């Protein structure tokens, strides 16, 4: 079994996914490209391209959850939900970038 297969399916697979998610979130808190980084990482760890879609969406969901929680902490949640198109854009970016990145990464990195 290759190293990547081990990380994808071994007993530390879930830990790897958590670490990838955390790295992605930290990167995403500095620049939108961090969402792509996170997507790539969780995509590479996916066991299949289909699974990469799920993990990309999940990473995006986690990023959006953290984003909303942060706004709630700042007391800015109500204005956020009134931003209309901006809200749609944020949600679209949150799910879209990581998912596309995850699928693309998984398609490129099949196994090593």
């Amino acid at each position, binding site marked *: 079994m290759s190293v990547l297969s081990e990380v994808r399916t071994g007993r530390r697979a879930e830990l790897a996914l958590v670490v990838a998610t955390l790295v992605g*979130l930290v990167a*995403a*808190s*500095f*620049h*939108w490209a*961090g*969402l*792509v980084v996170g997507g790539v990482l969780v995509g590479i760890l996916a066991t*299949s*391209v289909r699974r990469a879609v799920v993990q990309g969406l999940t990473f995006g969901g986690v*990023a*959006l959850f*953290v*984003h909303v929680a*942060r*706004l709630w902490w*700042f*007391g*800015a949640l109500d*204005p*956020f939900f*009134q*931003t*209309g198109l*901006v809200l749609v*854009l*944020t949600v679209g*970016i*949150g799910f*879209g*970038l990581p998912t*596309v*990145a995850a*699928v*693309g*990464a998984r*398609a*490129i990195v*099949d196994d090593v």
Partner: protein
Amino acid sequence: MNTTTRAAIAVVCTAALVAASVLGGSFLGLAAPLSGDLYESAAPEGATQVDSPYGSASVWYDDDGVPHIDAENEEALYFAVGYVQARDRLFQMDLQRRLVGGRLSAVVGESTLESDRFYRSLDFQSAAEASWQSVRGTDVGTPIEAFTAGVNHYAGTGGLPPEYALLDAEFEAWTPTDTLLVGKLISWQLSGSFADLRRATAVSRLGGNATELYPATLDHDVPIVRDPAESDAAPFSPADVVENTSAANANVGGDFGALAEWTDTYDKDPTYGSNNWVVSGEHTASGKPLLANDPHLALTVPPIWYEMHLSTDQMDVRGVGFPGIPMVVIGRTADAAWGVTNVGGDFTDLYTYEMRDGGYVYEGDVREFDTEMETIEVADGENVEIAVRKSVHGPVIERGGRTVGVAWPGFSATNESLGVYRLNHADSVDDIREALRIWDVPAQNFVAADRAGNTLYYPAGQYPIRVTDGEVVRGDTIFDGSAGEGEWRGYEPYGQSSWDGFVPFESIPHVEDPDVLATANQRTIDDPAFYMGTSMTYADPYRGQRIYDLLDDAVADGDVTVETIQQVQRDVRSEAATGFTPYATSSDAVAQMSPDARELTTELDGWDGQMRADSRAALVYRIWVDEFRTATFADEFEPQGMDDSYYPRLFVLQQLDADSQWYDNRSTLERTETRADIAAEAMNRTAERLDEEGWETYGEFNTLDMNHPFDRKFMNYPERPMDGSRFTVFNFRSAGSTQAGSSWRMVVDFSDEDDSVGVVPGGQRGVFWSDHYHDQLDEWADGEYKALTLDRPSGSPDIVFGGGR
């Protein structure tokens, strides 16, 4: 999945990411979760320790977001003021200086190019620079510099407001001149006027009869100073200023329509106005004076005013100022208070020229215009070059083949910042009077009171005396500048004026220790010793009449309390409505109305002019009077290409004879209409309009709808129906895109600290994420208040400024 499919997926995904990055990079940077620039400003401004080169200061924000700043010295104080104003209102400050500096297009684009052309043409920037040179060596110079440093410290270390992310723009460093530019903007909006262009054009197009629509004086008996004998003005004759006097009135007639149309957008807004009054301790329950003020300006998002409480060992002042200006403009100290309304006088003159050899003739000589080529930067567009020209009178503007020079005291170096600084240190009415001695623009009706029981009314400002051939003339005309008509002695545009030819401070009509005195932008006094203004510059008398009626009744009923004063501020009875309603309900008019219109008039039976949101009668009246005005004048004005900005004051319409020629509809040659005919026609239109619009009550028409300059729903304030009108004391009017009204309501009572109150229409912070974005809006709309005491919140400060010199 085979290799080809995976490769295809990889290519598509990579292409999608590259495309998103290239085509939508700005959107990604703006709105991406966690890192989007728009969300930077959502975090509460975290800096609780700020380095200050000026010394220590502490800031406590109260429950309404009002900063209470206490500092060891004034420089440290104003550094902190700059910091907190930038924290709460940076984009608004930037927008204002760009507007008046003619630099909006650099961030907004071509849509603001005409605005930039206008403001550049009048060169407010040079006027502000002249003011800075004038005041930088005075007591206010160092505070302005410290304020500037505070603004820039915040801009360099704190989060920029979300508007910068939306515009993809950067903040450029604040300068002392910017503070004075904001002052120029406010002054221009309150006292710059091109009314003479409109009147000359109307008379040119409609004939000499039109002069009756723009009388020298509105025929009412409620000037601010009701009894001229009350005035304590020193004897004054313009002969003291010039060699001799006469009533001679030079007049350059003609059609200035193109100029009038262009300048109308930037002219003094006729819907602006304000109320203030003072009641001396002679008539109050406490024996201490009561003072009230509510300036009526555009209702903006965020509000035009920013409330502050500033204290050092030498001063303790609370009230509101304009973001960008470090001092309190309206407010109170521990022992004195003052409020302002605009003097509806005439402070702008226009001059035509005989052009010759590329220059202009002035008193027999040909002079070149002082010309500078300037570039207006346009975001996402081509930059535009304009020639900024000046004559001896000031800036020169041209449209439609007509050229005029513009004289306005504010083009000179002015002292309003120093005047406000001194007001902030006032301990008594005497101090306030001394502060006003140097007040130049905009001329303001000051009412003042102090803890010792003194009161004062002073319409401070520089009042020009116009001189033609050594004779004093009125200013409600366009002068022949080449012939030297209408000169202002002692006035130096963009330089230091001596003001020698202006009215001496002591000779301005004023009242020492008035018992009851109210101002609402109406005529200052009957038969002043010098020309002050006309019906086109002074407000209609409706608010002034109502305030005096209410205060007189209150005084007659017994001792006045702070509750009495608040009730007056909440009053929504329109004297305009009570004056016009009989026209709408006259039997002659009703007899000619459609059945639907006739039914509407029954709503007005017994109605007392209360402009309440839930009133059907108020709605009927409001729409009818609009239609009545249009039906009266549109048949004359519209065919001549003049819109309603040329119409006369509403009071002039009310005073027209029932068979005035203006009621006659020019399109009906077979008959001659009278007031009753027009009233009936207007009510018929009112019925049609109500049917079309579906409005049931006044509040559905008179709706609070305050929008952010970007007009994005999430940045706009909540909408709600409103009481009040342009002519009620409780002032609010919605007409088209116009939202104007009481921009700050204040009552000061020296007998009980807790009784002094104030409220702004919105909130303290201009960042839409903030809890203080519009947390005072409902209080304001409901006529409620919050405390205006000199107590600061207990507990640890929110921001501490430290360091040393």
